[in-house]
């Protein structure tokens, strides 16, 4: 069968090609990526599925010997189930209705218009993300509590309303949607902003020449072409809201609104010893099912991604839209947003850090204010070590996650080389960890690595592994959306210029992906510094990190100390952000830089 024609040039070997695959660095890398991602994801996933069919009353899943559908039965026969599902849908819809349009609007304003103070606002938008959720949640209560919340107090004063409580009640479904929606904005902004930036201006210019105004152009040209990015964001955040417990835990109990994550919370916080992993996993599996459905829909809707390529060779820097008369309202809007969503919670955090216990600002409480927390914190040697661990952990996790995310994205977007099947598999599998409750990931890793010869148990590496698994979902969504905008011909031109795959990646793909990569790096690092649930399952005396410290300080009533550490975390994150911008700046010379570039 083999025929060996003569070579093209002295140094070129003809490779034998079987219809299925060719040996090359690319296919090796594909194989490795498939193996690593599958491994990372399947371990917790299998634990999830396995535990969901185990009777885990007072037993851990791998101890229990009874296989049962009882967990699913409990879910579907409980009278609470229907209201829980309905509430979850409403909560998700409401939060997304608040958060996504805000994020899109902000991304558009900051990336595509000539609004003043762009660089500052873009940085500030990201600050809420850097506050550990435990602390930021408290800030929101301090702002919006019906009786003493500062915003309500201010509103009552401003409008002369004479009630004891109100007018805004945060303990309601709308209150929950509002706070959760705001919490989504930084992450959504990061995911979407890079897509707005890299637009071929000719696409919009044609629309403008046809007489469409800004709004029409945006709605008819810009947004549709960003469909993959927007859809990816939508699907990701649906699962995030469904699965996250911060807001339902803080506001939902009082509002008597029960959602899916509430049910998972109760299952995992047994008062008498062990979590009910069976039930928690059954619920997680249901979320998994929803995610699979969403992924299938997404893949159908974004099937022909050549349509969405906006970085071609032809144009790169979109024009700035002049807002004219709209400049002032837009600026006011941005400032209002920054004030409400960023500055106020941050100030509340600062306030908490100088108060022995929470009290609304007043002459009396001002007298109690003291900055000694900031001085004392350094005396504790364990805090310095925790900070060091945290930074190391964040960096390792970020790098690992980015590498994986970029590789996954490449094989998903440039799927022609290996077929849709593998691409869809990768896209779906990299998304699934988002659905697995953190403690299940933790338990799965404990189970595996306590036995495995790989000596990462009890070290920072196992926590890094858990986090990489978890953060792969967001990262790969972000890098995929960004890569879709890079026209395939740019890479093909590199191939035709004689470059092997690795050089194409290095000199063409990655520089064009760099803005998205910097975004993702920042996002992962910030989240890694705050991650709590998995750290609690996996950490050791040697691997204490700041998030567990904050948490245990808070539990022990040292609220001021916890807040001080929170403020320190914010500064660390700010340093990271500035670092990312410095990298962008150096890469691009004197072009005006913004985060996510």
């Amino acid at each position: 069968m083999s025929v060996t024609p003569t070579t093209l040039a002295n140094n070129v070997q003809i490779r034998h090609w079987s219809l299925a695959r060719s040996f090359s660095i690319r296919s090796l890398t594909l194989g490795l990526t498939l193996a690593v991602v599958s491994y990372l994801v399947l371990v917790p996933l299998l634990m999830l599925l396995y535990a969901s069919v185990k009777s885990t009353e007072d037993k851990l899943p791998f101890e229990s010997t009874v296989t049962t559908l009882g967990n699913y039965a409990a879910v579907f026969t409980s009278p609470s189930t229907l209201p829980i599902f309905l509430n979850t849908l409403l909560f998700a819809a409401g939060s997304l209705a608040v958060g996504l349009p805000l994020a899109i609007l902000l991304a558009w304003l900051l990336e595509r218009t000539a609004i003043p103070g762009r660089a500052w606002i873009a940085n500030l938008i990201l600050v809420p993300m850097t506050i550990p959720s435990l602390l930021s949640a408290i800030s929101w209560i301090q702002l919006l509590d019906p009786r003493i919340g500062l915003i309500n107090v201010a509103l009552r004063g401003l409008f002369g309303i004479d009630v004891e409580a109100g007018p805004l009640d945060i303990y309601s479904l709308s209150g929950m949607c509002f706070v959760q929606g705001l919490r989504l904005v930084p992450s959504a902004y990061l995911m979407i902003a890079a897509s707005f930036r890299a637009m071929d201006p000719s696409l919009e210019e044609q629309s403008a020449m046809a007489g469409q105004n800004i709004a029409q152009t945006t709605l008819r040209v810009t947004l549709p072409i960003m469909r993959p990015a927007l859809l990816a964001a939508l699907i990701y955040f649906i699962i995030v809201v469904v699965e996250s417990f911060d807001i339902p835990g803080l506001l939902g109990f009082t509002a008597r609104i029960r959602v899916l994550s509430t049910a998972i919370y109760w299952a995992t916080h047994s008062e008498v010893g062990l979590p009910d992993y069976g039930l928690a996993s059954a619920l997680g599996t249901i979320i998994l099912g929803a995610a699979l459905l969403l992924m299938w829909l997404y893949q159908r809707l974004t099937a022909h991604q050549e349509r969405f390529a906006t970085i071609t060779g032809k144009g790169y820097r979109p024009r700035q839209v002049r807002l004219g008369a709209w400049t002032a309202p837009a600026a006011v809007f941005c400032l209002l947003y920054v004030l409400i969503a960023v500055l106020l919670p941050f100030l509340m955090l600062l306030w908490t850090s100088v108060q022995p216990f929470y009290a609304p600002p007043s002459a009396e409480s001002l007298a109690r204010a003291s900055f000694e927390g900031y001085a004392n914190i350094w005396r504790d040697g364990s805090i310095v070590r925790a900070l060091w661990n945290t930074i190391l952990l964040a960096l390792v996790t970020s790098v690992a996650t980015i590498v994986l995310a970029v590789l996954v994205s490449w094989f998903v977007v440039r799927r022609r080389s290996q077929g849709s099947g593998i691409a869809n598999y990768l896209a779906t599998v990299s998304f699934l960890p988002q659905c697995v409750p953190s403690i299940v990931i933790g338990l799965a890793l404990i189970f595996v690595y306590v036995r495995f010869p790989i000596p990462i148990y009890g070290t920072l590496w196992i926590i890094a592994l858990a986090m990489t698994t978890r953060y792969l979902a967001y990262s790969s969504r972000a890098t995929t959306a960004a890569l879709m905008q890079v026209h395939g011909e740019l890479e093909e031109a590199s191939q035709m210029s004689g470059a092997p795959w690795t050089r194409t990646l290095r000199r063409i793909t990655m520089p064009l992906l760099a803005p998205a990569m910097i975004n993702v790096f920042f996002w992962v690092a910030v989240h890694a510094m705050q991650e709590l649930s998995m750290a609690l399952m996996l950490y050791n005396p040697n691997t204490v990190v700041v998030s567990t410290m904050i948490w245990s300080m808070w539990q022990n009533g040292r609220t001021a100390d916890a807040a001080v550490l929170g403020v320190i975390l914010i500064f660390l994150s700010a340093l990271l952000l500035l670092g990312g911008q410095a990298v962008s700046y150096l890469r691009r010379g004197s072009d005006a830089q913004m985060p996510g570039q």
Partner: protein
Amino acid sequence: MISVRALEKSFAGARGEVRALRGVSFEVGKGQLFTLLGPSGCGKTTTLRCIAGLEQPSAGEILINERAVFNAAAGTFVPPERRRIGMVFQSYAIWPHMTVAGNVEYPLAGEASRKERSIKVDEILQRLGLGELADRLAPNLSGGQQQRVALARALVAQPEILLLDEPLSNLDAKLREQMRFELKSLQESFGITTVYVTHDQEEALALSDRVGLMHEGALLEVGAPAELYLHPAHKITADFLGMANFIPAHVQRGGNQPGDEMLLESPIGSFVARRSVEWQPGPAALLFFRPENVEILDGNGPAGCETNHGAGVVERVTFLGNSADVILRSGATAVRVRAHPARIPAVGKTVSFSVAPSACIVFPV
């Protein structure tokens, strides 16, 4: 120099499989400019990309310079980066994060020393009139300049063949014409074997040594431009290259062999025409002739019933500058005529016309 044999390729479409290439075969001689011409979706770009190695056909072979870069049966496939081909994409695919010089130097990476590379880059930039733009960032160029950068990049490493995917389609008309000549002269002076893809028949006719007309995945005809224009073997070719009159007619006699004279009876008169390759014996046929071959006769009123003569009322006249596009209505049939600008008939007037038999061809219905 390039041999393409029996290429087959299918895509999974929305409603089952789409056969994008059906047994495409052609040869390109050394130093020739060969154009693949056809409407969108006919498979010309796919063929080009198969030669480039960016697509893998399911059957067939491709040889460049006698060496197989692809052979389905033998399982041979040389990846695109090893084929030493220069390619210009329709979108130019200039890398926006690099300067012009950076773009052009890229194919030379790893070869020679920095100094030698720099010399080669300068040379090609000068050759293409881009010398001043070497340090400009790629997006800050006009369309025409970008196209030339793409060309420079494709040529700098002295490839064996050059592939061009609709390189002029994004330029305005004036620039297009100008670049046409530049391209041709470049190609000739470099003597580089070139495959050119376009849907613009004027371009194809102007530039090519040989043209291959593609339709729905199959290569219909290959030939020199004049050959295809004057003596098309297929109706589609006739229709695609330039303007055409197709008049349904009945066969009176003749037509056993391609090229034979035939007598047709049509609503506009009797015509003697030559049989095309495509036509199969039967009663029905399509009479074909080009508008520029219709001669409007002097004199008033209809002429006698000679063969290859007809008459009609001038329905519409469109003045085009160097000619006039005239629609004659003869009975129910519209006949399109290209008239000299100095002899434009008045609208509403009845004129007679004739078409030489050598300019008439018989095609199937």
